[in-house]
């Protein structure tokens, strides 16, 4: 059986404008425009990145700080639009980038479940059905009617994780999220993600813990200054990564 291509990233480049002074008021903009002083300090966070993932592939993205790992995940999840190149996605994405980013601090836990669910594109009916499941998984029953501003960061992450992993996604994007909550919840969330792995979910995973990447992934790419310098089997790439970090 030919494997289905799920993620296809072709020649992706992402350009940022890193001007020293960010011109964000009209007066300055016009003055600089007239004086021709508008400086565009270009910086390519990603350059000519190519890879293809089939269904069930688990890709670890390695690299030092600032290599472009998180930018790559944001481009794949659609938050950032690539300056050049193409990203083709077949399937439903669950981005676990920063959990609970869509929360409103004045809203209670209950209201936030619906708000965050809506942000992720779920319907009201679906959330009504899954509400008890969320409560149970997040273990926040006692605090569900308390405004989220009174939550601890661990509690917020637990609630976010419980909502974001409601559906069985085809593609799971993980950015250092397996380190949320206390040890007990971490075990639970890892078990949940593992169960998704068993169902053949495609994974893009960023972590600084090489041990974790090796445990979870079967493929890897190594980024340096926005370019892929090595890709392939996890063991080969991690060898190169280890040499780089020496």
């Amino acid at each position: 059986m030919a494997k289905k291509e799920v993620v296809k990233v072709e020649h992706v480049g992402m350009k940022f404008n890193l001007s020293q002074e960010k011109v964000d008021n009209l007066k300055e903009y016009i003055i600089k425009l007239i004086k021709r002083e508008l400086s565009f300090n270009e910086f390519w966070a990603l350059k000519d990145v190519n890879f293809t993932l089939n269904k069930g592939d688990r890709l670890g993205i390695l690299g030092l700080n600032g290599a472009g790992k998180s930018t790559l995940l944001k481009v794949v999840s659609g938050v950032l639009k690539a300056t050049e190149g193409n990203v083709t996605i077949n399937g439903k994405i669950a981005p676990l980038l920063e959990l609970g980013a869509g929360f409103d601090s004045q809203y209670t836990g209950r209201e936030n479940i619906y708000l965050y669910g809506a942000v992720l594109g779920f319907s009201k009916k679906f959330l009504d059905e899954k509400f008890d499941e969320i409560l149970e998984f997040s273990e926040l029953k006692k605090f569900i009617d308390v405004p989220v501003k009174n939550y601890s960061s661990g509690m917020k992450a637990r609630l976010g994780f419980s909502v974001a992993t409601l559906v069985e996604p085809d593609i799971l994007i993980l950015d250092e999220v397996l380190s949320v909550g206390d040890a007990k919840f971490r075990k639970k969330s890892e078990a949940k993600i593992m169960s998704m792995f068993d169902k053949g979910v495609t994974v893009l995973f960023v972590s600084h813990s090489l041990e974790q990447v090796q445990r979870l992934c079967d493929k890897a790419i190594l980024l340096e200054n926005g370019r892929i310098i090595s890709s392939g089997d996890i063991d080969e790439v991690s060898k190169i990564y280890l040499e780089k970090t020496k």
Partner: protein
Amino acid sequence: MKTYIANFRKYRFLLIELVKKGIKLKYRRSYLGILWTLIEPIMTTIVLSIVFGTLFGNPDPTFPVYILTGRLLYSFFSSATNGAMKSIRTNSGMIKKVYVPKYIYPLSSVLFNFIIFAISLIVLIGACIIFKVYPTIYIFGVIIVLALLFLTAFGVGIILATMAVFFRDLEYLWSVALMIIMYASAIFYKVERLMNSGYAFILKLNPVYLLIHNFRQAIYGHPLNMHYLCGSIVFAICVTGVGLFFFYKKQDDFILYI
């Protein structure tokens, strides 16, 4: 086009949630809650009626209705455009993390203000009864005016939303512009004297005044002014078209600036 509609259906619930959130949070922790939507226009109308009716000696017995119509429409326009302008920045946390069609944010803030405005129309009904301004067949003109008002506020709102991402000082500029619009909308003065002077163009070029005038026509039982109505329609369609065009052209850059 089909994908746009499918996408809209998918995020319809988010739109409803954001509108609900606006309404809920606006009055959270206030004792009178949503009642403020009614109390506030009543109080400002009383003040304006005393100042511009009694002190400046306006003989019209229905003057409070006149003020209220102008004030309600203007304050919707002002809060909706302000809300839409800031919507991208206030929701930057979400925009940076999850993909959501971005027009949802300005649209939800215009919608939320429109609902608050619709509730406050109850005050107008009360005032009409008290001051014996009874509806005629022309009252249905109100629907056309309100639809155009919504479109105008949305169009202006998304233009402001797009620009405000790149230029923060637009917020201050717009508050000055709103003040000019307020004084040029004939909220608390009668227009006759101005219309006969050389400054009539100030009113006629003000899209908010065109709408307020036709709204009053409908409330007071007169037919809509067709010239003004055409002006309103053209303005609403143009501003929404231009707004959507710019918004779609620039929306991928938002995230780099917020």
